[in-house]
């Protein structure tokens, strides 16, 4: 499966039309070929960074069908008019390195980040391996995926999509932040005080409420 994830930041004058835009996107996606799943939801009101107003997450059968959707006539006629004034932060990725939920999480969170151009590949590998320790030591993470971007669009390049699902936002703000695996190991790559620092400070952290698990 291939995911195309977009965060839309509406211009100030259009924030009042948030639900109209979301409804329009849901209808427009129905006209696109090869879309397996579609989630269009408002960004959660807390615990977000550079996330904008709307999360739009489509799942396609493959990267080729994701590309075909963007080339379909309905993309130009139905999708673009809805998002043409929005700032779009987007990333496409294969959802392959993942563990799915056995229960029904209610919160999906993603951290989108990239490593600095001079980053030592060995440190990038270390960052990935240490991040993968988090689901083992934070049982509140019900489902997760850590995948590399195939493409990205927006203000800065995106290299990694680290997404998780929780039963509630307290799982993110509590156990996820409090585990020593996070502050004692993984965070060094994000921390300018540590020599391991390799992650571009421009992060996107997005949280949304979900009706069912989307990491599948």
């Amino acid at each position, binding site marked *: 499966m291939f995911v195309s994830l977009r965060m839309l930041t509406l211009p100030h004058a259009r924030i009042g039309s948030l639900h109209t835009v979301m409804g329009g996107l849901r209808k427009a996606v129905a006209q696109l070929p090869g879309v397996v799943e579609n989630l269009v939801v408002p960004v959660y009101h807390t615990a977000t960074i550079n996330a904008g107003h709307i999360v739009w997450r489509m799942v396609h059968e493959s990267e080729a069908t994701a590309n075909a959707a963007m080339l379909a006539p309905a993309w130009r006629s139905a999708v673009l008019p809805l998002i043409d004034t929005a700032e779009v932060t987007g990333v496409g990725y294969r959802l392959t390195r993942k563990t799915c939920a056995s229960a029904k999480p209610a919160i999906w969170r993603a951290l989108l980040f990239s490593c600095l151009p001079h980053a030592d590949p060995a440190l990038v590998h270390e960052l990935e391996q240490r991040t993968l320790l988090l689901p083992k030591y934070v049982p509140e993470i019900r489902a997760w995926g850590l995948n590399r971007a195939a493409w990205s669009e927006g203000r800065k390049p995106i290299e990694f999509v680290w997404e998780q699902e929780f039963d509630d936002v307290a799982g993110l703000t509590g156990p996820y*932040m*409090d585990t*020593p695996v996070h*502050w*004692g190991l993984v*965070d*060094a790559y994000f*921390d*300018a*005080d*540590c*020599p391991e*620092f390799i992650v571009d*400070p421009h992060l996107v952290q997005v949280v949304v409420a979900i009706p069912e698990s989307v990491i599948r």
Partner: protein
Amino acid sequence: MTDPLHVLILDEIEAKPGMAAAVREAYRDHYAPGAKARGMKLEHAWQHPPAIEIAEIPATLFWLWSVEGEHGWWKQRLSHKADGSDEREDKLAFWQSLAPLTISRKRRMLTDQPGGA
């Protein structure tokens, strides 16, 4: 209610031969004040070789800080400047300014061992 975790932050910096005094001065004058403002408490500062300056060989300098609890740790980590912007660029600028004087450095987060000493 349990006491917050006592978290130690240990900086270990290997100064180039003859540069130990310059590293100490830079750290004291340009790093320590900001760290204290972020809630870090300086517990100790040590050096090796002990009790002597030997200009011909590298010297290793240690600074041990503490913060109280995970909250205290994240407070220093996610600090902001007075204008509300991220302080990471300033932190990075300090470490980059120190780099020409040093061979290597480490920062490690520490806690007491389980079961006591």
